[in-house]
């Protein structure tokens, strides 16, 4: 019964069952619906942690694979699930952030409550499925499926411009992912022409490496279209701030925390291991796009007057680091990137939750309307400062570990290929900019003379109160994770490093190959390598 694979299947199905329960329980009233939704996510959370506890420390093979296979089918898309180092932590984070999302919507959502929690649980189901799918088509099914609940979450419970935001979000993502879909089909069919059987298993496709070199760049571009929009990378990021600003708090938390990572995860799972040659060839372009995203996102964030928009643009900047680390293709940078995916989910998820809590009290997100709230709301200020530090990467918090690994890895790459050194230097400037806009936000809103928005107080004139137990409960797990990852990242890195090395190995080889071809120094200087060894 408690075999890991059964546990995995049960954990994924729990939110789906919960979503159906919302529909059944709707007549019993909102209070019961909310409690059942919370209970469902807690059960899923327990299941996830049991899986994390059982996950082998240095294994690089998929763990707890649950397959439903019918060989008699011609188009044998399998319902096959499993966890490995790449997906383990995103899977766990989905479960954690969903609890936070439910807590922050507790009083904020008053209309169509059962439908809201049903959609949230469906979203959790979709995300848990995306990260565990071991079949390429199943991955795509979950990937697209996550759009539907979020479309409704933004469209029904969003702010004024919600209808436009929901449509733009859906169409942007769908347009890109249709091309991704064609790319995935092409990979399967190349494999078919080589092996003679239609095979959809990601593991088999990765080990077969059947895509011919002359086609790799073409397919890479197709996959890139969907994943880059999802991340979002610089020129195609315009849907993100809009969707974030219009979405309800829970939607923003989950969108920033999990859904954006699906793009990075897609790169890591498909583009890099299946198309190593194209990855190596496109590397400079991808690094440039990432670093432009870092700096552009930071500069735009600096100019925002709306808190939620500021955090949204900071996401563009931070996800630039994730892709930068990923495409730097050195072991350290890739590990940093995978860690940064989790870090960003924690810190930005929490920041969106905090902005939502402020909005619930004052009904405005204009930075200029606030000032000196530290005296009024000390507890909220404490959490805000904590997650700001995490977001800007103060040593001791999780942000530092991730960004540090990425930057070191990037410099390693820069020494190997001097043309790319300028990118590493520019990326460092993004850290400074990040500290600037985040600290500026904290200073203006929480310090200085007390200034509260006028005419926006609680509808019934109740006094503004500090965080209550429910809100602290929403933030506390994330705060624990901030320090856990910040002080003892080994626990997390140990479990993902073997899988990451396996996935990026081929692409790293290709890069080395390309470098030798270009008659450039391949090895990094001795000093750096030694200092890196010490860091690890």
């Amino acid at each position, binding site marked *: 019964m408690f075999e890991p694979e059964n546990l995995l299947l049960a954990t994924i199905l729990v939110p789906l069952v919960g979503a159906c329960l919302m529909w059944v329980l709707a007549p019993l009233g909102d209070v019961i619906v909310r409690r059942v939704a919370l209970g469902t996510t807690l059960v899923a959370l327990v299941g996830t942690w049991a899986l994390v506890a059982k996950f082998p420390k240095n294994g690089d093979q998929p763990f707890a694979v649950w397959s439903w296979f*019918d060989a008699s*089918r*011609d*188009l044998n898309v399998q319902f096959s699930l499993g966890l490995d180092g790449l997906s383990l932590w995103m899977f766990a984070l989905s479960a954690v952030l969903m609890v936070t999302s439910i807590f922050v919507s507790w009083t904020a959502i008053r209309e169509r409550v059962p439908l809201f929690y049903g959609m949230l649980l469906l979203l959790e189901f979709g995300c848990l499925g995306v990260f565990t799918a071991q079949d390429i*088509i199943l991955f*795509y*099914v*979950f990937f*697209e*499926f996550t*759009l*539907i609940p979020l*479309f*409704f979450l933004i*469209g*029904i419970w969003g702010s004024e411009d*919600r*209808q436009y935001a*929901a*449509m733009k979000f*859906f*169409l942007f993502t*769908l*347009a890109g992912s*249709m*091309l991704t*879909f*064609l790319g995935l*089909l*092409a990979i*399967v*069919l*190349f494999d*078919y*022409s080589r092996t*003679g*059987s*239609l095979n959809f298993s990601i593991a088999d496709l990765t080990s077969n490496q059947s895509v011919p070199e002359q*086609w790799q760049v073409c397919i890479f571009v197709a996959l890139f279209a969907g994943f880059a929009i999802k991340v979002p990378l610089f020129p195609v990021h315009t849907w993100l701030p809009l969707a974030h600003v219009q979405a309800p708090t829970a939607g923003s938390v989950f969108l920033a925390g999990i859904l954006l990572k699906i793009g990075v995860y897609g790169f890591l799972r498909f583009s890099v291991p299946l198309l190593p040659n194209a990855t190596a060839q496109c590397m400079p372009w991808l690094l440039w796009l990432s670093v432009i995203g870092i700096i552009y996102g930071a500069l735009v964030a600096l100019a925002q007057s709306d808190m939620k928009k500021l955090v949204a643009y900071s996401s563009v900047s931070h996800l630039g680091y994730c892709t930068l680390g990923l495409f730097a293709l050195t072991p350290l940078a890739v590990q940093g990137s995978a860690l940064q995916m989790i870090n960003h989910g924690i810190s930005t998820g929490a920041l969106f939750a905090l902005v939502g809590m402020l909005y619930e009290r004052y009904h405005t997100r204009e930075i200029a309307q606030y000032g000196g709230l530290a005296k009024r709301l000390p507890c909220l200020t404490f959490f805000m400062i904590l997650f700001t530090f995490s977001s800007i990467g103060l040593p001791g918090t999780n942000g530092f570990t991730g960004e540090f690994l990425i930057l070191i890895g990037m410099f390693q790459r820069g020494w190997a290929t001097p043309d790319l050194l300028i990118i590493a230097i520019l990326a460092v400037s993004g850290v400074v900019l990040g500290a600037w806009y985040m600290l500026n936000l904290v200073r203006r809103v929480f310090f200085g003379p007390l200034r509260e928005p006028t005419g926006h107080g609680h509808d019934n004139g109740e006094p503004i109160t500090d965080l209550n137990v429910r809100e602290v409960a929403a933030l506390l797990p994330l705060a624990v994770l901030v320090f856990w990852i910040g002080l003892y990242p080994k626990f997390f890195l140990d479990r993902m490093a073997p899988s990451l090395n396996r996935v990026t190995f081929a692409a790293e080889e290709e890069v080395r190959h390309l470098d030798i071809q270009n008659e450039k120094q391949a090895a990094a200087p001795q000093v750096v390598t030694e200092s890196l060894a010490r860091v690890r």
Partner: protein
Amino acid sequence: MYDELLKTVVTLLPEIFLIAMATILFVGGAFVRAPRVWLIVTVAAEVVATYLVWQQSDSETAIYGPIIADQFGNVVRWLATTTGLLLVLAGARTAKGKLSTEFLGAMLVITAGVMFVGRANELVFLFLGLELISIPTYVLLYLGRQGRGTAESTAKYFFLSILSSAVFLYGLSFVYGLAGTTTLLAMDSGTATIQSAFMAEPSTLGGIALVLVLAGLGFKIAAVPFHFYAPDVYQGVSHSNAALLSIAPKLAGMVAIIRLVLIGLPGANPMVWQLLLVIAVITMTLGNVSALWQTDLRRMMAYSSIAHSGYMLIGLAAAAAAPTQAYGGIAAVLFYLSVYALATVGFFAALSYLGDNEESVRNVDDLAGLANNQPLIAAAIALFLFSLAGIPPLAGFWGKLTLLTSSVDVAIHHTDPTARTWFLVLAITGGINAAIAAAYYLRIISIMFFRTSRTPLQGTGGWQAAAVGVSALLVLLLGIDHGHIADAAHEAESSLRAFPEMEQTSLDPGEAKLPT
């Protein structure tokens, strides 16, 4: 002699049964006025026909005179009776009116017509099947609603349909002239058939025949440039008739193209895939882009149905270019037809449930706030539209998957580099079109869910609700387990390929292997 006749009668039993029932309805309706009873009788007839088809569904390929009994025909018949049943339910409002039995009888004849087309092995028989669909349709269009718009629509459809039949017949006369026979296939290679006649050198006259035949059938499936009638006609007729128009002729037209053009005239012209490919690209793009600006629901769905024809032409073009491939175009088209038919009939049944007269549900905005006062119907409509848009895990997604797979397959494996490029373009156009189509489907959904209504709609009609429920359930189930239908479609394709001539002379086998 009698033995063979008996066998023919047995294999035609479902069709004979349907036509006999239609006759009873036409005659009986004149004496007994009991619409409810007749409706139940019709539904029962469709159910019995489905059962009879199901009984015959594992038969070996055999040819009885003008009829070919194969797996392909069985899938088409099964599709015809199932959608026929749903269409009768969706049209229950008309069926309860004054001319009840005329409507119901015509529906049964149309069902039989589609089944004939699916099994035709002879030009005359094929034409007979197509006319069995067209002529009752003229009657039906008048029955749904009264008004000047209806009269205009019906007249328009009538004249254009006659014209297309004439063009089609003209094409058939060329085919007959070149081949000297009206039989499409034969079990033994000695008999003269159209297929063997057209295996030889491609000729100019063969090209003319091909173009004329495709023009005639292009009207049935509303492919560009024969699509102009669709928006005007759909807009003028009732919801259930719009459903009928977007399913029955399309089903028959697609099946006729497969039977006649892809299998019957393999060597007519090497340009056949180019022709189909170009029509596919233009049809889906024009359909989807025009639908973006529509405010009238039925007009929008007319453009959407044009676009879906374009998607299905992807599969036909792929099948024409590479007859033997991993996941064949014909199987993809069959699968897509069933998925499309279910979602479309469900959508129109839901509209018909909400009201069929001129005022109630006409524009997209009339659906505003539906999620508040009719949550179940709104959820079902959203389900159908997501399926039509091809969003997983619904049935429509698997349809798009099979169609795009067939195109990408040709793009990778074809021996001719030009063909590879063109099929890549086709696949990418298909992908982009799926995103464009999502825009107008989402607009309907967002209006239903995100807006509030001024005048709440009242839903009436248990029969239509049943049609909505059944279609919604099937769309969901097919999404979760698409395997059975996909397997049946694949077997159908294999049964078409089983004839000896096909294996020797496939136009361009490429590197692809025979279906496993």
